[in-house]
């Protein structure tokens, strides 16, 4: 029963997120889904408490809702940003020569695209001379990434 509620509310969160996206409420897709997932999650929690009280079924449903939301974020960010997915999307239009495939995503263009995206999300900026600099947000991200690298990898490599 509670599992059915988890997937029903997840569907509502996904639809709500899609509506917010269509109206351009928040530009960042992850933040937008976190917002809609949080709101729908609270509604689900109230529903569960009124149905089961503070029982283990309520806790299980909240944990599973968080899990499926995280999985959904993982999947759609993969669909939006992955180069492998972009290659698949390109081949969906028509088969092409491997050399053409390499031409479409010229490494220089890939770097420039990333720089544009990083500037768009406010992680880097350009000064009057045109030099690229990290914003305060970019510096904070570097600090977090350095900490995570020290936890997950054997050496901190500044790539």
């Amino acid at each position, binding site marked *: 029963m509670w599992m059915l509620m988890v997937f029903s509310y997840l569907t509502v969160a996904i639809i709500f997120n899609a509506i917010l996206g269509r109206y351009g409420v928040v530009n960042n897709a992850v933040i937008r889904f976190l917002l809609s997932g949080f709101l729908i999650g609270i509604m689900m929690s109230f529903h569960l408490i009124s149905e089961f009280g503070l029982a283990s079924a309520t806790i299980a449903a909240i944990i599973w809702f968080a899990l499926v939301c995280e999985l959904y974020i993982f999947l759609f960010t993969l669909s939006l940003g992955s180069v492998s997915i972009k290659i698949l999307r390109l081949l969906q239009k028509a*088969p*092409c020569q491997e050399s053409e495939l390499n031409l479409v995503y010229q490494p220089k263009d890939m770097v420039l695209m990333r720089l544009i995206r990083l500037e768009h999300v406010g992680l880097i900026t350009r000064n009057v001379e045109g030099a690229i600099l990290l914003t305060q947000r970019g510096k904070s991200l570097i600090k977090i990434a350095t900490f995570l690298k020290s936890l997950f990898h054997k050496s901190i490599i500044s790539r």
Partner: protein
Amino acid sequence: MIFCFLLLHFLFYSCLLKRYIYTERGIFLYHVFALVVTISYCTILYIIQEIPFAHGVTDYAIILGVQGIYSLTFLECWSITQGGYSLGILFEINNATLANSKKPLDLIKFEEIGIEKQTSRIENLISLKLIKREDSTVHLTFIGNRVSKFSEFLANLAGTTLRE
């Protein structure tokens, strides 16, 4: 109990195993191993305590849910910090700033990483049977076509289109 187990699992990796397990496959298997341990432990506990399955199923779900969140978060953090292209660029900008370098950003280094990534991606997609190479032409396989359409559906559902 589950939180202690997951904390130990993380600390064991972070303090010791990260020197020996550094491939995607290795990390994945490390988490599969943890899942097998959790399921086995819970099952044995339920059998010993003679808890009926119907009563234990919600507890099982809580434990597996917590473990799922932990594993997914771990894998995402590991993967982002392992080889994120954007993160690499940010690190390079940070290093150039710290060195107070007047030189323009060395984009060639990233272009090389880009070539490396692109080549390995095509090979990976072939090994995953998502695309196939015939003569010098690259085609989508049936599964590749489905994955591509599903990703398009997800991107549209997320309220945005692919960043071309």
